[in-house]
């Protein structure tokens, strides 16, 4: 009698774990977000002939580049069970400093790009050190940093844009290779590198482990503090790179640019299936999540929908995504 009971419970477990594996596999590559993206694209393609043209799609890509680059960094941060609210401000400060280097101080393109990325990484390092070693909650640290850095950008420029960025510094955001914008190539490279880091590298594995269970990871010998520091530095450096792309596109550095970018980036990561509690998520999902936000914006614009209404719809999408995640978790249990 006991033997039968045990066997059925084993079968149950096996069936459940099978279902779980399928779900988490599709999840690992942002399956749900991809399906949602395809549906949205199909709807726009039917409603608006302008939508599926090459020039419009390239336009979407160019618009989405900054968000995707920043969201890739945010993916690492969120999987490690942290949050980075300072990304928007960091992009803005990096952009005005870059503009000032190139336009005012006549620094060359390569050095400008390197300086801006280094500045982003430095801001990330400060965040990371405060979270990892001073053990202050990431929400608090980056909330403070968001305000500090935005203030720094405004102080540095007196609140005015800095224009006149030279062409060599604009190449990554404005240049093209054939018809393909360089910004898209940069985005693709960032995506590929972050994907490989998460899937294959020791550091990426530790990001998942720390986010999944910090105590277990610590006891297993994972360098928990170093891992946290790492994700914030990557997030900061990618903000620097995103600022270069933005700078190139606009030809100027605006201290008020990228406001609310942190919320879009977090939304992209969550729509992509990551858990805000850490341990789960993928850069594929984030990629699709960011595209959903960008396509929605672009398609609704083409349809002539009021931009205030677009805001409402974006918010609804975010909540729907989390609701979906909740349902997915229920099937898991």
């Amino acid at each position: 009698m006991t033997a039968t009971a045990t066997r059925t419970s084993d079968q149950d477990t096996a069936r459940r774990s099978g279902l779980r594996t399928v779900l988490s596999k599709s999840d690992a590559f942002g399956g749900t977000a991809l399906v949602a993206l395809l549906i949205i694209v199909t709807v726009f393609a039917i409603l608006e002939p302008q939508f599926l043209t090459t020039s419009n799609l390239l336009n979407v890509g160019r618009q989405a580049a900054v968000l995707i680059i920043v969201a890739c960094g945010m993916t690492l941060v969120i999987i490690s069970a942290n949050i980075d609210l300072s990304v928007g401000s960091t992009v803005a400060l990096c952009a005005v400093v870059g503009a000032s280097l190139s336009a005012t101080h006549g620094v060359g393109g390569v050095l400008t790009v390197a300086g801006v990325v280094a500045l982003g990484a430095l801001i990330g390092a400060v965040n990371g050190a405060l979270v990892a070693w001073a053990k202050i909650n990431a929400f608090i640290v980056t909330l403070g940093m968001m305000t500090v850095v935005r203030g720094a950008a405004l102080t540095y420029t007196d609140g005015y844009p800095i224009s006149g960025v030279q062409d060599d510094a604009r190449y990554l955001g404005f240049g093209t290779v054939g018809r393909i914008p360089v910004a898209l190539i940069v985005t693709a490279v960032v995506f590929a590198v972050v994907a490989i880091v998460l899937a294959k590298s020791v550091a990426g594995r530790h990001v998942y482990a720390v986010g999944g269970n910090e105590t277990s990871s610590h006891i297993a010998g994972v360098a928990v503090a170093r891992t946290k520091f790492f994700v914030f530095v990557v997030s900061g450096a990618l903000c620097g790179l995103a600022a270069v792309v933005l700078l190139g596109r606009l030809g100027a550095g605006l201290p008020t640019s990228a406001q609310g970018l942190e919320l879009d980036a977090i939304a992209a990561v969550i729509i992509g299936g990551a858990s805000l509690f850490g341990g789960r998520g993928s850069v594929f999902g984030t990629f699709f999540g960011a595209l959903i936000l960008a396509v929605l914006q672009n398609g609704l614009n083409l349809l002539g929908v009021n931009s205030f209404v677009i805001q409402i719809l974006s918010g609804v999408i975010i909540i729907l995504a989390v609701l979906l995640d909740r349902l997915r978790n229920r099937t898991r249990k």
Partner: protein
Amino acid sequence: MTETTPLLELREVTKRFPGVTATRKASIAFFPGRVHALLGENGAGKSTIVKMISGIYQPDEGAIVVDGQRVRLHSPADAEAAGVAVVHQHRTLVDELTVAENLFLGHLGRAWARFRRRTWEAKARELLGRVRLDVSPGAFVGDVGPAAQQTIEIARAIGRDARLIIFDEPTTSLTPPEREVLFDLVRDLRDQGIAVVYISHDLGDALALSDEVTVLRDGAVVAHERSGWDVQTVVRHMIGRSLDSGFPRTRRIGAETVLDVRDLRSPHLRGVSVSVSPGEIVGVAGLVGSGRTELLRAVFGLDPVDGGQILLDGRPFRPRSPRHSIAAGIGFVTEDRKGQGLVLDLSVSDNVVLGNERPLASAGLIATRRQNTTVDATIRSLQVKTSSRGVPVGTLSGGNQQKVVLGRWLARSTRLLLIDEPTVGIDVGARGEFYKLLDDYAAAGGACLVVSSDLTEILGLADRVVVLRAGASVAEMKGSDMNREAVLRAMVAAA
């Protein structure tokens, strides 16, 4: 009091959790006006039964019968409506509210509607009178002592017209005189016709107080008696197996010393000395709070050390962090597998190599084939039962999860294993397998320091036992001196 109808009855109740059957076909009847002691070791199924009676869990099979009628208790509210109340091991009162407010908490709406404040407090005073507690209804709960707080919980249960009250380890935070007061109160409740379920690790108290006794082992009812049992009979039923069965011993103890802890002091330890040789399993016994876990944590670099000495292979060792201890060849299998051992969302494979990925990687990238080779070897040698190495480790049974944690340390050539409660939450069958793995490890020259609350386990497993009391090592025994009575006496002795 007639005994024809039990107030509440469990009929062949089975409850399963992934990997563990918590109760199997357990039948127990609780009668009004009787104190019924529920006894058993940790994991025997007592708390599962309490949770089924109080509506937190629902049985997978079998029935719960109240007043002769089958019922389904879907929630604690259902159980409360059926007259069930629990006086918890952990307090459930709100410190910032008054005694009267706590008494009617969750029923405030009803209370507000029915009474003006004065009648409300009068009602509270009446309830406090029934449990003979002399505190003002307007006093804040945070200001009264732990014993009074527990009594307030009992008063609350009575106030909700409870007909069956479950006492879950009620004496743990009470002084001896307070215990006597509690016992009187329990007898009072019995005489008022309430069915009392009494759960305690203190077998002497439980036997003295109860009118009938049910012993659980591995989820099943193994004995039930109206009265006339002594502690030894109960213990025999609780353990149900002879002391040395299932504990293989193929190891040979080496002459040298791997770990030598001398007079170790920390905020939780007041002088602990213990040593372990290669091929040796040393057991650490002691009551909860005696510093057992804290000893392992200190050696592993998780807690700071204030004084004393730790020698590793005869050389002084000051553990700074887990990474530092791991580098010195120490591994730690924690008591809380899910919270402090595994990352449940990661696969079996990733958990086996967690923290040890560097040797599998080149240029920072993990070579999947090399990882698979390592993991497959671990799965094979420890006989981990899993459908594949890729499934989330959380889907495995407790015993197999424990093997994954152990496998992680074995895969990185650990010389000294610290193990806290090796078989907590693991089915009996799987325990034997785990004991064999530990013996194999020691036979290969490994050293083990094992903490366990299960005396049978510790006496069977260990070559030597060190007893901790109040943060200090107070006794060490081996061979024929190492027996249950001696260990127990050292654990609790007053001086």
